[in-house]
């Protein structure tokens, strides 16, 4: 069929392109008319916020990379040159450094939103697993980025984290040597970390596109956790959700700007303003805050391999969530028992984070152990068991009814039917 496809766009240029490569039809379909459940709350904006953060990180990162030198003898000084001499270099670097933290804040809220409203359940399993992979790649990217300024925390963080792999029997030490490209963290390590830190954000971008594609197949979840049944349940993405997400993005940017301009080093560590010294380890090695809960799990297990497995396992576990949770009801709104445990998990994550920042001894070690135990207990025992035992509250019949009548649809008993137990 050697004939151009028909296109509905009036602009002749757009029409010409679109009838040959239907990108405008696709964008129109996915971002203009994409039906969004009309009852989504502001927590649904954190996906868009995370997306904006990725763009900000890639943009500032690109311009920083133009000024940075990835050699151990130059890295620290080149970062200081960016801070002192490059026009607006200080702005770029503070936006990038604090941006990592803000990116993680956005992603963590996004993840907990998914947990609370059961966004990982069928048919959104692949969407969720892609999210877990994005999270893993993000952690790798952030870790390698933190090494680049080549301060004390950069160096010792790199040493400690790469040494994690030495816990594996037989293959461990060769893997670590391979990662380092030498017999300690040194120039080859810094160079390859820079190369990977530049590459991975584009991998992330690709994963985010897949994540969005998977989302658009089955549509967004919503606070009620029931499927949208027709146009009365949804609004077109543009302008309704565009403006709502846009507003949330700007509020988020205000908090971000307060960090960048008024407390830019708050989330960093002073030791990273001391050039890397392979002969002196700082008194307290603390990873960036967003790794602290996992760091606490690593230290909570008294066995080296066990700690490493617990840390990696805690993330790998998330990928199996769609099958660990046996309940057919998505939203915690209708799961009175599980909802309590959700909040315990949220507090557990914060406590683990705090314990990860404290010296691994005495009470903090015990707290970290209890926290680690609960984390695994929650996902491996509570979730499967609760799905069988819990009797969920009745679900509303439709989103529109719930929105228009108010009160979350619970009062509308005549229309609501109790969810069958799985």
């Amino acid at each position, binding site marked *: 069929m050697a004939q151009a496809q028909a296109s509905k766009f009036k602009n002749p240029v757009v029409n010409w392109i679109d009838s040959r490569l239907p990108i405008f039809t696709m964008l129109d379909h996915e971002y203009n008319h994409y039906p969004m459940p009309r009852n989504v709350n502001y927590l649904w904006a954190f996906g868009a916020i995370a997306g904006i953060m990725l763009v900000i990180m890639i943009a500032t990162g690109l*311009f920083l990379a133009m000024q940075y030198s990835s050699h151990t003898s130059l890295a620290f000084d080149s970062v200081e040159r960016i801070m002192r001499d*490059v026009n607006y270099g200080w702005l770029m670097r503070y936006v990038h450094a604090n941006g990592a933290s803000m990116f993680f804040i956005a992603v963590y809220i996004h993840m907990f939103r998914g947990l609370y409203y059961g966004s990982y359940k069928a048919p959104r399993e692949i969407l969720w697993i892609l999210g877990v992979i994005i999270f893993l790649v993000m952690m790798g990217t952030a870790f390698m980025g933190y090494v680049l300024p080549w301060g004390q925390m950069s160096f010792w963080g790199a040493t400690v984290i790469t040494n994690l792999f030495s816990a594996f029997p037989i293959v461990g030490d060769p893997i670590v040597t391979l990662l380092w490209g030498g017999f300690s963290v040194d120039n080859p390590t810094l160079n390859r970390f820079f190369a990977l830190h530049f590459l991975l954000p584009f991998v992330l971008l690709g994963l985010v596109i897949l994540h969005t594609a998977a989302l658009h197949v089955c549509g967004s979840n919503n606070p009620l956790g029931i499927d949208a049944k027709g146009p009365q349940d949804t609004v077109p993405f543009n302008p309704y959700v*565009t403006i709502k997400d846009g507003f949330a993005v700007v509020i988020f940017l205000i908090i971000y700007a307060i960090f960048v301009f008024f407390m830019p080093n708050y989330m960093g560590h002073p030791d990273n303003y001391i050039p890397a010294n392979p002969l002196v380890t700082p008194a307290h090695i603390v990873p960036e805050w967003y790794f602290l809960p996992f760091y606490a799990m690593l230290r909570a297990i008294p066995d080296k391999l066990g700690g490493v497995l617990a840390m990696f396992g805690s993330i790998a576990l998330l990928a199996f969530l769609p099958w660990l949770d046996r309940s057919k009801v998505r939203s915690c709104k209708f799961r009175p028992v599980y909802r309590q445990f959700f909040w315990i998990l949220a507090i557990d994550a914060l406590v683990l984070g705090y314990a990860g920042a404290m010296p691994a001894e005495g009470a903090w070690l015990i707290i970290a152990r209890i926290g680690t135990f609960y984390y695994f207990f929650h996902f491996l025992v509570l979730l499967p068991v609760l799905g069988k035992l819990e009797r969920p509250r009745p679900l509303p019949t439709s989103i529109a009814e719930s929105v228009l009548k108010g009160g979350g649809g619970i009062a509308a008993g005549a229309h609501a039917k109790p969810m069958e137990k799985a």
Partner: protein
Amino acid sequence: MAQTTHPPGTGGHAASGGEGSSRRDFLYLATGAVGVVGVASVAWPFIDSLNPAADTLALASIDVDLAPVAEGQAITVTWRGKPVFVRHRTAEEIESAKKVNLGDLRDPVADDARVKKPEWLIVIGICTHLGCVPLGQKVTDPRGDYGGWFCPCHGSHYDTAGRIRKGPAPANLVLPTYAFTGDTKIRLG
């Protein structure tokens, strides 16, 4: 960014009519305008970061002591990453530069206009053709048909005032901005 909105009311303006709709349109316009201003001002720091940094600018002017350069000798100094030719001209070289008929030149400039002190000729040592560095600084170098410099890349000949005399180059060797800060001291830049 998500600032651009497509209000449903823009098309059916007259239909919905009334004051409320125009006030709404104004709100949309104002928001869009503020958003555009924001995005535009974000672009500047990115662009400006590519301009020369403070350490580069600090080296934009340098001092050179000419006292050690004997008559007939030349030195090359690096200024803003480019070679600057400083030649202590002999009386004959000055004479030959002065007596040239300006009408014969491709880029006619009098010798007086190319020097601040006749014995010191100071030019940027980059051929105006395609950016090579001409030969002629060392006594062993070929100096071309006119006793100045000769560019080996494409055969441009410059005279003892750094003016183009023969070959593909379109213009004379460029003069740097400089000033004498003493009898034999100059500041470039």
